[in-house]
């Protein structure tokens, strides 16, 4: 088995936290310098950029209101879902690479700032299901037809995380069996 460092979904969440989103701060503060860059000055109720982790920190203390990113709206997700649905055997359509993590974080912690949160949950789940099924189907085709290499575009981190063990382990086993025989 591979000895690759075990990456966990928590790590993916951590990476997704670097995403910059808009917040409506409930406090006033000057410019702050973070590793990600300069943010602020924060003026009450004026939309300002902030990293996601910072926004969540403020949200917990009820110091800000998170503004939903443009791709986390019902309309955008519906069009995405229809695109994926209309193309069941085609490639994956472009989507935010951390969509799964960010949407789950925001829906868990800031659902009151998200309009139509329940519909968004179902839409995300639908998109996830469709994309995963496309991936699985293409993997099984690849294994059956014994392709040597494959190229995947627009795969998000969470999907990659889910596919990696299957793919790696199954290919490893196939190789093992072929060598044995």
């Amino acid at each position, binding site marked *: 088995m591979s000895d690759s460092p075990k990456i966990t979904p928590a790590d993916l969440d951590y990476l997704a936290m670097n995403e910059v989103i808009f917040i409506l701060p409930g*406090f*006033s503060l000057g410019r702050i310098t973070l590793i990600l860059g300069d943010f602020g000055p924060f003026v*009450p109720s004026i939309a300002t950029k902030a990293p996601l982790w910072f926004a969540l920190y403020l949200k917990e203390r009820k110091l800000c209101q998170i503004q939903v990113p443009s791709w986390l709206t019902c309309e955008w997700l519906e069009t995405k879902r229809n695109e994926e649905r209309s193309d069941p055997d085609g490639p994956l359509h472009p989507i935010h690479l951390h969509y799964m993590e960010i949407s789950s974080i925001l829906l868990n912690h800031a659902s009151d700032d998200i309009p139509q949160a329940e519909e968004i949950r179902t839409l995300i789940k639908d998109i996830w299901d469709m994309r995963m099924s496309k991936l699985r189907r293409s993997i099984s085709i690849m294994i059956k037809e014994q392709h040597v290499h494959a190229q995947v575009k627009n795969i998000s981190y969470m999907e990659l995380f889910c596919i990696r063990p299957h793919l790696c382990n199954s290919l490893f086993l196939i190789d093992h069996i072929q060598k044995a025989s």
Partner: protein
Amino acid sequence: MDTNPPYEEFVTHSEGFGGCIFFSLLGRDYLLSCGSDGDIRLLDLSGEKEPIDLYIGSSHLYQLACVSEPTAGVLFACEDNSLYWINLNLNDFSKHTRKIITRFASAVYCVTTDSSGRWIAAGAADFTIKLIPASAILTTNQYTCHVLDTHSAPVLSLSFSSDGLILCSTSCDGHLIVWCTNSRTVKHKISVLSPKVSDLSLSSSRLVAALSCMTADICFMATPQSFSEEECPSVPVYSSLDYHLIDRLVSNSTTDSRSSGTFHCCAWSPDSLYLAAGTALGHIIIWSCSVDDTRVIFKRVSILRHTLRGDIISVAWGVSNITGKLMLAAFTKSGYLILYESLELTPCTIQANANQLDDSLLDGLQAADLFDSQESHSNIQVNGSNINMEESSLDSKPQTSPTKTDRKAAKKRKFVPEWEEDIAIIEPEYSQSCSEPVIQPEPSLLRQESFQPSSWPPFSQITGSEHVCLCYNLVGVVISHKAPGAFEAESENKHFNFLIEVEFHDRGVHHPLQLIDPHWFSVGVLTDELLVLGGSGNRNVKKQPKDQCLIQVHRFNAWDGSKEWNAQLPEGENALCLAAGRDWIAVVSDSLILRLFGTEGTQFDLLKMPGYPVSTAGRGSRLILVYHQNCTLKDSQNMSYYLLAVSGMKLVLLAEGTLVISLNSELRWIGFTSAESPVILDSLGHLEVGRVNSRGVIWAPMLDFSKTVRKKRNTHKLVILGITPCLVEPTEDEESVCNEEIRYIVPSHGSHYPSLYPRPSVQVVTYNPPFCSVATSGVLSLEQRYFLSTFCYGQVAKQSQEELMRLFALAARSGSFQRALEVGALLNQQYKQLAITYSSRLQLSMLGQKMNSLLDAGRVEITDTAVTIDSEDPSFAISQAEHELKDSPLVPGEEIAPFLSAIRTNSTNRDSNLFSSAPANPFKNQKAPFSRASSIDNSFIKSVIQKSLGGKHTLSNVTDNKQQTSDLFSKQSKLGETRHPVKQTEANKSFNSVESSKPKPNTFKDWLEQTMPQLEADNPTLKKTELIQIATKKWREEKREIS
């Protein structure tokens, strides 16, 4: 009758239709219908009832008429301004020939023929009626076509009497005109409806005139009304004898009549026994009419209900050739044709009615005793058939009853109750043609209601809302929630409980508040220190007279125990608007009183306003009130304002005048900038900022929201939160000139007011005064930048001076030197030097010279308004001035007098510049001390003067001869007409010593003149040359003494 007799339904013209008629030819019955799709369909009633297309066209067809002579044909009125005729080819309906009978200037709305077949009448939207002999159909020759054009609005319907002598027409102008066909003159005009409309689409009923003929003499005209003064729709029936309103037929008894809806059409049956009218709710109501010698009685015979099919637009009667029974067809707006092929109706007779007391509207004689506005029988005397109809109306009526019935008729029109019968009603008895007033008053705008700035309109105006924002400003949001009451009060209406929620933008100011509101607050204002709420009584239940308006104030960060206090306004007053400032609260009530409270509750002042209040706002120590002083004009609200300063429990009126907003607009928001200048926003999106000076406030347009906000329709709905200093201090980059910005929120697409959940995002914009010839929006021209910088920083500030330099440079480079000079004159000394250097670098010597002269003029010129300002800290100067002078208006850069006293108290020995902003006042007493001359300047002048004049004579020279100093720097000085004595500072002792000594002659020549007489007296014998020699010696000696 409640159950409908058997009927059939067809769907014919699906797009809506125009009209229908029965037609019978050669023993077969047909029903023709025309519609807005342009088709004419034929329904063969004798055979299979299958609609057949007779004619397919494209323009909307309004009405049909049938002609049987000379050949069977159909006339139809079309929207393409023509009256057509097609012949009916019985063998093949689709084959026909079409001919245009006549043309109008606009759409033809109605066509009819008389029963004798002689005339065709057609009316159109160009207000004319054309009367055409029926023989014109087949001739190709010219025929006389009579035009009747008395109407002043589109003609809606026409109707001939059975003998063809009378033509009745109705039009949108509300008149029913009776014409005599032979002479084509107006016989009578009845005003049926008062509002005149000019378009068919606006008059919701087709004001149809249906004429019937009872006997040879009397015809009845029925015109269904939809805009009637009374509330229940009715069909008034007029008699053609005396054009007298016989009756108003309603569908039911008074309480129920509204259920049938307004009447849209009516038609008399061919035997004139029945009148059918169709209503908006799908009912067809049939009355039967019976006439005897004295009375005409209408009795409702049946109601045919077709509520599912929509409103009935047209009805038509026919008599079946085969069965001889009455047929009724009705068309609905949705395109259904309802056909009753054999309608069984029982006519009513007078005798049968006399003893019946049912819910029918006419119960003869007994009704007159009760208060019954539906009393409806009239006495008409008919004396045979040879009466001139008009004369009989005057002579032969019995004495009492016409007047009584007339009065009653008049009463019906005016709803005067029975017991007021004896009050004389001055009304024309018959003709109700309204006369136009001679002088038309100019319509004026509706007065604007009072409002609280930055708030949503009250609950009553937004239906269905669960929350209303009382105040949304820079500090936070105050929302009033409506929650169903936990208890039901004694009154019928359910009480609502109101909850006030306060949320601050900056959580650091205060945590969010939730207050229960038993007083139903309707206005509120929020500042950093307090929340003021005002309101009275119950919004749902009618206000009890005892309910007094309560003002409740919550203080945040109160150091004593009292966090809240209440004040009750006197009885009968209601708080309309609130304002709060640094340490005061203002309440404007509807009894025109402005009350001022301190923040802790002391009432300290009252003011009676000259007019009904519109709005109020406050910030710091300023309060502005806007009120209606006069009536509104045709294009402006004509509001006035008071600008007051409130501080230390004192109220001072600073300025008053007319509020300047755009024409045809209303005030939307009022507030202050951070420098406490008033700002107004009108409903067209124009933002104006006021500059206060000694005589009042002048308003400058600073921003046009319609150019900023993307969706222009939202300009009158945007809510300004406030004006604050900019987020980021303007750095050295070119873009930012203003130090202030305006924050506002815009409603999202489709809603009336910005949504509260989730909170809307705040937009930010800065001033953009509408200067000419700005290349692209967003990029400010140099003049705009200068204007804004003087506005924000003052004219003396570094930023403004820099903008001026830029303007100077631009003007100099582009060759307009006079412009450069004008701009240069505004620069202060330091920048003038720079300008001179710049112009010399560009080798513009003339400009340089002129600038030079300006420089000197500015240097030595001292007027009352001269002042030195620390050029490196202009805002310091402004703030100092503000601090020093609480009671006088603060002006960004306009007046310098406030700075004078302020700066005097702060002596600055740093690099200071002489500056004079106002032109020298020649009448002013020129003894102003030159107190702040810098030591550097003085010493420089001194040293230069000393060097040039050789030292000995300079000291005394300087005191009173300014000519020399200017001579040093330029050949002549243009503006240096005012010269003041220069007061010395203590540093220049030599000056002092000079001043203390007596004035001595400066030159040898002067001295010689002085001493000559003495010398001559001493030495009379010497000649002049010798005297001069002696004099020179003496002069040298004297000078040696002094030095």
